[in-house]
C-alpha cells in the first residue's frame, strides 16, 4: 500500500509538476492539487495556551472547534460559508475540514490531490523537503519531497490561509480547498482546535513497543478462537523477529529501515488476550479494567458467537480502534467510527437476496414473495435485511412466516403456504433441516421457480443439496467462490507454517489473516505517526484490496464495512458439484 501510494504520487507529480503561484497556472496543467492546510502553534504547546484568544473554557472550545472542523458549523449554529474554485459558493457542512484533512488531521493522498497535515504540531513547524530523521526512508521521502517547503505558520498566517487560501510564502493553495468565511473568535476557536489535533501519540505506544489486544468472549468454540488468533499472532511474531534480527544483522536492518523506517522497524509489538466472561452487561466493567491496566493502541480481530455491541461501544467511548472482529452481528451505524468490520454480518445476505430478486423482477411479474424464517437471531437478521431493502424500494411487502425454535419445516406446512399464497419466490432462512421439505416441494409438478436460502447457514450441507432442488435453489454466498481461492494458497501457507488448514476453521483463519495484513499495511503507511484516528483514516483511504475469502474489500472515508458484496449461487449438477455464480458480487 505504501508503495502503491508512493508510485501513484510519483506518477502524478511527474506528469503534472507542482502547482506554483510564481508560474503561470496554465504551464502546469493544473492537477496535482495541494491543500496547504492549516495551522500553527509551536510544537508541543499545551492546549490551554491555545485558548488565549477566547474567553470560553477549554472543553467548550474543544466542542465548538470540533463542530467547525467536522460538521462545518459555526459556534452560532450557522453553517460556515465558503467558496471553492474561485467563485462557487458552498455550504461548510458539505465542505468540512475533516472531509479532506480527515479525523486525525494528518491529511491524505487521493488521486491527484495531496492534503497535507493540519494538526498544530506539524503546521507550526517549517516544512522541509524531507521528514527529519527519515530522510532516507523511501516512503517518507517520496511523500515529503512533493510537498512545497514553507515556514512555520503563525496564528495570523494560518487565519490568512483559511480565509484567503494563501500560505506564508504568498503561494495560493489549490482551489479545491475552500476559502472560508471565518473571523474573530470563531477563527480563534478553530485554530485552538487544530492545535489539539493529533497532538501526542495515542495510548499503547511507547518508544520501544506498540501494544495491541484481542477480545475473546469466553465460551466461543476453541477452534474458532485459535483460527482467529494464529494469523494475528503470526504477524506479531514476525514483526518482533524483524526487530531483533535488525539489531543483529546490517542487511536485515537496511531492509527493515527501507520498508518501515527506523522507528517502526525497532518497535516490538505485543498482543494481549482480553477474555470477557459472563453476561454482556458485565463486559463493560471488564473492558475498563483491562484497558486501565494495559492501555493498547488498537484491538486486533476479536471473536464472539453472539454479542459484540458492548465492545463496539467501549471502543467508541475510548477512541480505541478495533480492526475486523469475527462477529456475525456487527453494530450497524452510519456514524460510529472506531470499529471496522469485515462486513455487515449475517444481515448482508438478506439484503443481497432482496437486491437479487429486484434485479430479476421482470421474471417475477409482481407476484407474491413468501419469506419463511426461523425465529432465532440468525433468522431474524436475515429476514430483517431482506425486508428493509425490499420494502424501501417500494415493493409490496413479502408474506412472512416464522418457524418456532425446534420445529422442523415440513413439506405439508410448506405446501400449504404455497397453496394459500401462490408466491413466485420463496425465501427460507433456516438450516439444512429445511432441505428435505424444499426438495419434496421442488419435485411436485407445480411449484415456484425461485427458492432462496443462505449458503452460510447450510454450511457444508450446500454440497449435499439434492439434485431435484438444485435447479431452483438460489443461495446467498458472501465470499469468493471456493474454486477461485486457489491463488491465495501460497500466502496462507506462509502463515500456516507447515500446519494443515484443516486444523482450523478456514473462513475464520482467513479473517484473521486479513486483520494481520491490514494492520501491517496501515502501519507502513502511517509515517510513524501513531494516532488512533490516523490508523482508521489510513485504512479508510486505502485502495480496493484483494485478499483471501472475500471477493473484494473496499474502503473509503467513513466506510466501516469492508466487504459489501454477496454472490447468489447455485449448486451444479453431478456427484462432484461446484458452486456456480448467478449474480455479480455487487447486485444492483
Amino acid at each position, binding site marked *: 500500500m505504501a508503495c502503491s501510494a508512493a508510485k501513484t504520487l510519483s506518477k502524478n507529480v511527474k506528469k503534472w509538476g507542482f502547482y506554483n503561484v510564481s508560474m503561470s*497556472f496554465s504551464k502546469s*496543467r493544473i492537477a496535482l492539487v495541494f491543500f496547504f492546510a492549516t495551522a500553527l502553534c509551536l510544537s508541543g504547546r499545551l492546549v490551554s495556551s491555545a485558548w488565549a484568544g477566547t474567553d470560553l473554557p477549554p472543553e467548550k472550545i474543544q466542542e465548538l472547534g470540533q463542530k467547525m472542523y467536522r460538521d462545518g458549523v459555526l459556534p452560532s449554529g450557522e453553517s460556515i460559508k465558503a467558496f471553492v474554485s474561485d*467563485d462557487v459558493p458552498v455550504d461548510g457542512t458539505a465542505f468540512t475540514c475533516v472531509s479532506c484533512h480527515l479525523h486525525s488531521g494528518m491529511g491524505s493522498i487521493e488521486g491527484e490531490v495531496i492534503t497535507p497535515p493540519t494538526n498544530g504540531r506539524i503546521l507550526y513547524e517549517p516544512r522541509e523537503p524531507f521528514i527529519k530523521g527519515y530522510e532516507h526512508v523511501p516512503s517518507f521521502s517520496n511523500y515529503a519531497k512533493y510537498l512545497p517547503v514553507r515556514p512555520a505558520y503563525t496564528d495570523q498566517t494560518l487565519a490568512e490561509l483559511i480565509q484567503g487560501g494563501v500560505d506564508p510564502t504568498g503561494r495560493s493553495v489549490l*482551489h479545491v480547498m475552500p476559502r472560508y468565511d471565518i473571523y474573530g473568535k470563531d477563527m480563534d476557536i478553530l485554530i485552538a482546535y487544530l492545535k489539539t489535533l493529533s497532538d501526542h501519540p495515542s495510548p499503547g505506544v511507547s518508544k520501544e513497543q506498540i501494544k495491541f489486544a484481542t477480545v475473546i468472549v469466553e465460551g466461543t468454540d476453541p477452534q474458532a478462537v485459535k483460527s482467529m488468533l494464529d494469523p494475528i499472532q503470526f504477524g506479531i511474531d514476525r514483526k518482533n523477529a524483524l526487530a531483533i534480527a535488525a539489531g543483529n544483522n546490517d542487511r536485515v536492518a537496511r531492509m527493515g529501515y527501507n520498508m518501515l523506517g527506523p522507528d517502526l522497524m525497532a518497535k516490538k509489538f505485543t498482543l494481549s488476550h482480553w477474555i470477557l466472561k459472563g453476561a454482556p452487561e458485565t463486559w463493560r466493567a471488564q473492558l475498563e479494567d483491562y484497558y486501565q491496566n494495559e492501555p493498547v493502541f488498537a484491538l486486533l480481530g476479536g471473536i464472539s458467537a453472539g454479542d459484540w455491541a458492548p465492545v463496539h461501544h467501549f471502543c467508541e467511548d475510548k477512541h480505541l480502534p478495533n480492526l475486523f472482529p469475527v462477529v456475525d452481528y456487527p453494530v450497524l451505524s452510519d456514524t460510529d467510527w472506531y470499529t471496522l468490520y469485515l462486513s455487515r454480518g449475517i444481515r448482508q445476505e438478506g439484503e443481497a437476496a432482496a437486491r437479487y430478486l429486484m434485479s430479476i423482477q421482470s421474471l417475477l411479474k409482481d407476484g407474491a414473495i413468501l419469506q419463511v424464517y426461523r425465529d432465532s437471531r440468525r433468522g431474524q437478521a436475515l429476514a430483517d435485511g431482506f425486508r428493509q431493502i425490499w420494502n424501501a424500494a417500494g415493493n409490496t411487502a413479502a408474506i412472512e412466516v416464522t418457524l418456532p425454535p425446534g420445529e422442523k419445516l415440513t413439506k405439508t406446512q410448506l405446501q400449504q403456504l404455497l397453496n394459500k399464497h401462490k408466491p413466485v419466490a420463496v425465501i427460507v432462512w433456516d438450516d439444512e433441516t429445511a432441505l428435505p421439505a424444499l426438495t419434496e416441494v421442488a419435485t411436485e409438478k407445480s411449484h415456484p421457480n425461485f427458492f432462496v436460502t443462505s449458503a452460510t447457514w447450510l454450511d457444508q450441507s450446500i454440497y449435499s443439496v439434492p439434485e431435484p432442488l438444485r435447479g431452483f435453489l438460489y443461495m446467498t454466498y458472501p465470499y469468493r467462490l471456493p474454486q477461485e481461492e486457489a491463488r491465495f494458497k501460497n500466502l496462507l501457507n506462509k502463515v500456516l507454517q507447515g500446519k494443515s488448514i484443516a486444523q482450523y476453521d478456514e473462513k475464520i483463519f482467513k479473517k484473521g489473516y486479513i486483520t494481520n495484513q491490514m494492520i501491517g499495511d496501515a502501519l507502513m503507511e502511517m509515517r510513524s505517526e501513531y494516532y488512533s484516528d490516523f490508523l482508521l483514516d489510513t485504512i479508510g483511504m486505502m485502495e480496493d484490496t484483494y485478499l483471501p475469502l472475500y471477493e*473484494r474489500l473496499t474502503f*473509503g472515508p467513513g466506510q466501516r464495512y469492508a466487504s459489501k458484496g454477496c454472490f447468489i449461487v447455485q449448486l451444479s449438477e453431478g456427484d462432484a458439484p461446484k458452486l456456480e455464480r448467478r449474480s455479480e458480487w455487487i447486485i*444492483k
Partner: protein
Amino acid sequence: MTGSFRKTMMAAMLLLLTLPLPQAQAAAPRYERSVHNFSIPDIVLVNQDRKRVRLKSIIDTEKMVIVDFIYGTCTTICPVLSAGYANLQRKLGKDSEKVHLISITIDPENDTPEVMKEYLERYRSKPGWDFLTGSRQDINRVMNAFDSYFRDKMDHKPLTFIHSPEDGTWIRLYGLLSGKDFIKECEKVGVL
C-alpha cells in the same frame, strides 16, 4: 546610491505596479478542453430513486447532458465537482431545465441509491441532476466509453463531459472549473 537615483528607481517601481499583469497569467485556464466522439454503451443503470434508466436514452435527448464520475464518500475532487453542478443549477435558474446533469459513481460497492439520494440532498440538488450506479462491470464499461477508466476510485481525476445535442460531440474538461468557466463552456454548446 545617490538620492536622485533612488527617486528614479522608486518612480520606476511605482510605474511597474500600475501595469496590468501579463495576460497569460491573468487569464490562464485552469483546465484542459478537448472535443471527442464517444460511443455510449447500451446499459441500464440505477438512479438515486432506484429507477432503472437506460444510459443511452437519457443522453440522446434534445437537452444538453453533462456527465461526471464521482463517489459518495470522496473527500477531495468530487465535492468540488458537485458544488460546481449545484452552482450551475442555481445560476441557470429556469434554464437549468435545458440541462441534464448526470453523476456516475465509481464506487458502486458503497453507493447505493440511499447513499446517492442523501448525497444529492447534501448538495441541494434540483430536478435534473441524477446520480447513477450499476454493476461494477457496467460502471467500467461507461468509464471506458469515456476513455476515463480509473483503476481504483482513489485514483480518479476531475473530469466533466458536456454532450452537445446538436452534433453529438462531447467536450471533455479536465480540471476544476470556476463557476464562470463552467457556464461559459455550457454556453458554447449553444443550448442555453
